């Protein structure tokens, strides 16, 4: 359940609908009713408003805190730190980005083995987004020129296949042509 919520763009879309649909329902009900059905002042007791106000703030805080706590385990920053300290053998993939190509160091990427992608931009802002063969974005990284450290993330592939890499930071008139491929093979171990 949480995997499909936090590990896909569609999970994010679902969260927007979850936040939006109740709002729309209540908003239009109140506005329509108090404009066209009965625009007389409400007779609701003042204490009820205060109680409702407290409940509303409590509910919003609960949802907001709940979502953000639940998401911690799915943050690539957290999983990167975990993998880096796990003692597992990490495959390093270093790369540079320049208008409008990626330049990878040779590496064999296997399913189930963590891969540390570390990249730098040599000219302007670039992105490094890895797309699953199904078209889903697995993760994206921002490469800003002039940084001492590379942008870096550890990801463990779970399926073999050819993954597309795209630049997702607009970088000039051939931005859409800046793409490459990563081949992930079945693990030998």
């Amino acid at each position: 359940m949480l995997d499909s919520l936090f590990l896909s763009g569609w999970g994010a879309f679902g969260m927007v609908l979850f936040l939006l649909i109740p709002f729309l329902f209540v908003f239009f009900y109140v506005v329509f009713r108090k404009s066209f059905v009965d625009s007389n002042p409400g007779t609701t007791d003042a204490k009820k408003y205060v109680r409702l106000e407290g409940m509303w703030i409590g509910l919003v805080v609960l949802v907001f805190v709940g979502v953000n706590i639940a998401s911690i385990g799915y943050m690539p920053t957290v999983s990167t730190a975990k993998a880096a300290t796990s003692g597992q053998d990490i495959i390093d993939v270093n790369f540079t980005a320049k208008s409008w190509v990626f330049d990878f160091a040779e590496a064999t990427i296997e399913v189930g083995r963590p891969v540390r992608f570390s990249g730098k931009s040599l000219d302007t802002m670039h992105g490094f987004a890895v797309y699953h063969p199904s078209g889903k974005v697995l993760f994206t990284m921002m490469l800003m020129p002039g940084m001492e450290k590379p942008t870096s993330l550890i990801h463990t592939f779970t399926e073999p296949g050819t993954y597309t890499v795209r630049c997702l930071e607009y970088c000039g008139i051939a931005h859409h042509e800046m793409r490459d491929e990563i081949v992930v093979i079945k693990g030998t171990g």
Partner: protein
Amino acid sequence: MLSATKILRRTPVFNRMFAVDESDGLEEINSWPALMIVTSFVWLAVAGLLGVAMPLIQRMDLGTDLYYMALTAHGAALAFPFVFQIMVGISLHRAGGCVGKPVSGLLPALIYLCMNVGAALLTVAILLGFSVSLVMMYPLPVVGVGNGQWSYGTLVLAFTGIGLVLFSMIVFYPVQMLKIMFFGQKRPDLILDERSINDPGMLGMALAALVLLIMGTPLLIIATYVLVALYGIIPLGAVAWATEPVVFQFAFFTFAHNLMEAMALMVISGVYATLMLYLADGTRQLYSNRLANLSLWILLLTSFSSFFHHFITLFPNLPATLAYHGNIMSWGTGIGAALSIFTILATAWKHGLRMSAGLMTVLMGFVIYILDGASAVVTSNVAWSFQLHGTMWQSGHTMTVLIGVSVMWMGVIYHHYPVMTGRMLDEKLGYWFISLFTVGAVGAALVMLAGGAAGMPRRFADWAQGGWMVYGDLIQLFGLLMAVGLVLYAVNFMKSRQIDALSESPATAPEPAE
């Protein structure tokens, strides 16, 4: 001295849409705001046409260069000379009328000239090939000269335009607003509806002006240094600190993010002020001023440092703790928005509403703004940001916040138009406009978010590459609905009729019988 009244009177179309009433003695709070509002409509027309054209350019395969040019021009026209300028116009009129201070003299002229001349120069540079997108993607403007995408002269022209726009937004407008709010003599003859700074309808305007001035100053200093170096007045090496991408990017996004939040503060204030005027019981009171002001303060405080969410995917160059801080602060702005929702709904429930096209437009703008808020907090979450950053989701978010804010202002205009011009807008046409526009805006926003969820990149001239053209076609469809709505909005101004504003304006109409 430049006279806004004369420009309005002598410019074709402007003189039909927004000629100020010169007989009521209120020219000093009406003329410059009216000129800014009607000029912003010109930029809206430009931005709208380009927006509708973008999917068409891809569908008809008219060229990637043309697409990127349209993309840059669309964003530049929409964000600054349209949305910001319409906000400036209405807020200056509101502030002047609420505290009895004139909006005249050098400052409003500078706001107007710098914004429009600057935007025009930037547009010319874009037509010459300066395709850098709405946010410039620094250091792309400089790199583009190096790899032959545009010339050095074009870069200087574009930066001159951007510099003028920044001076208008960061210096002249906030100073003018603060001058009205806190300095000078009150003139009773200019007071339309006296209010104090404690009023939620006024507080947001003061806070927004301060945010623009304070949060924008670092960017202004950096941009000015770079511009002076580009002119050759000082050597480029002397501004190396300012031209570092990380310096420029952080200064830019500190301002750009807070600019959006300032516009939200300003317009939520405007919503509170307008809502009070359309209550069925005529009490002109919100459910709670305390709650309304609290929502503005929360929005203000949380938005300062939530800009870190723009750099979450820069990890580890942006430390994880700052990424998470940006995440939490962004969701904190949602708490402020939730309090606004409660204030508006409780006010409606408690006092009843006298619905009008203007109020409906304001409320639909608020709905679009909340839709945007939901998309914004979701993409600010660290886990989702790594999947959504750089996708069409972000474009959907940016477009929706700009549209939500501007629609609320467009609704507020219905209320102020009779006072400014002595003319009246048609209610039925107003309802048609907002119905079509809301369906178009919500539809386009949801399609763009869905495109982002499906991995569709933003600022990308080849939607066919990943099978995303269907999203482009749907954006086109909903964009056309918005365009038809906007045509009706413009027609309404062209058809506005002379009235006795005080007796016929819906805001001042007799209260319904109890």
